[in-house]
């Protein structure tokens, strides 16, 4: 397939993922690993690669993510975690670990510059 040819598909929101995000919101940050695991799953499903390929220390470049793949991922994360990821924060992210920590911050609603939004 040509690069980018399939990347404007509408992402299928997984209701299980939404439930997970909500349950995480209810629990006082007791399951950070579960959140990280969910972010990794979202990355894998958004990029359509095996979950095992996605490591905390992977860079988005390592995973072969081009600019549109990254847009799709941000959309998927916003949908799954009910958050709004500001452009400037999104641009600074290079690794999976940074992505996990960014999502964690937004889910907890303690970001100085961004607020989690509930759709």
């Amino acid at each position, binding site marked *: 397939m040509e690069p*980018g040819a399939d990347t404007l598909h509408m992402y299928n929101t997984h209701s299980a993922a939404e439930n997970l995000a909500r349950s995480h919101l209810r629990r006082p940050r007791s399951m950070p690993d579960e959140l990280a695991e969910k972010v990794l799953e979202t990355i894998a499903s958004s990029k359509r690669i095996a979950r095992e390929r996605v490591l905390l220390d992977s860079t988005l470049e390592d995973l072969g993510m081009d600019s*549109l793949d990254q847009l799709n991922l941000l959309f998927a994360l916003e949908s799954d975690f009910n958050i709004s990821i500001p*452009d400037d924060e999104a641009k600074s992210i290079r690794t999976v670990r940074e992505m996990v920590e960014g999502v964690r911050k937004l889910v907890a609603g303690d970001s100085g510059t961004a607020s989690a939004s509930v759709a």
Partner: protein
Amino acid sequence: MAPRRVAVTGLGVICALGNDVSSFWNALAAGRPGIARIESVDLTALRFQNGAEVRNYDPAQHFQPSQADLLDRFAQFALVASRQAVRDSGIEFTPELRQHTAVVTGSSVGGQSTQDAQFWEVYGRKSPRVHPLTIPRIMPNAGASHISMEFGITGPAFTVSTACASSNHAIGQAFWMVRSGAAELAIAGGSETPFSFGFLKAWEAMRVVAPDTCRPFSRDRRGLILGEGAGIVVLEPLERAQARGAPVHAEIVGFGMSADAGHITSPSSDGPARAMLGALQDGGLAAEAVGYINAHGTGTPNNDPTETRAIRQVFGAHSDKLAVSSTKSMHGHALGAASALEAAATVLALRNAMLPPTANFTTPDPECDLDVMPNQARPAEVEYALSNAFAFGGLNAVLAFRRA
């Protein structure tokens, strides 16, 4: 038979810089942007807040209510600009000329505001019906159709849709038709009105719209600013224009097109370079003859360095003698109408011997190391100029102009 020379004898413009050609030019020459907080859409749920909207526009001043009913805002703008252009050209249509006049318009998305409002009726308000004129208002060819009806033009008429290059593709087709004799006259350009909530949300999701303003080639650029409007040119053989004593604003001398065949949104430098080369070759121009380029210059992090490399690829050492500016810094990125506004800006720059600047510029970027004329217009008599347009989808179109 030698190909005919093609003159621009009429100009019409409506955009954030003004609702006629003289106010448009005054703003360009002053380096005064028309970018401000968006007024036509509720911004509560939008990350970006600024745009380049047409102000002080009342449809009732231009259209009877029965005609306005048929017209989405983008088609209204197409008509407003084409009335100006036809009046400016002083052309008098005969039945014979009407049959041999072409209308070629560009639009990326057609009647967005109609589509947004009417789809909301069924999706949001659960209404069982939409307005019966929804289809004829949405269709991207509505501009061309209404122009043909307005002036009784019965020759070839069509619309080109190539995203941000639509108008250059449209004007290029019209230029070739007049040059070859396939048409005796052409009304060409484009119109766009992207300010509808759903469409703005789609741009927000692309994460390419600046939160502040449009700063092409400036190191602190943060993206494009959407704009709206229409630009229309009247084209005719130079001989005919001279014979009837018409004002010749400039000539179009070349047109080049190419496709990147690469990425759907990330630009290449090879494709744009080939389109610029194509325009030079089509016009029989040496690269060294060009003095000014009205750049695509969107102000996104990616476009401007890529365009800089493309210009250097084509012009080599002459790149450092070129004056380059992006007038999107003032009229915003009007998508399918952008290159029509820029064609008008380029024609006026040649005619008035004054090159419009790149506004909102603060800091040089080593990756955009051309003479981009920060913030100040420059008096200069330029013989030849290019106007660049490079679309999402990798479709590139470049026009070459000559001072009259």
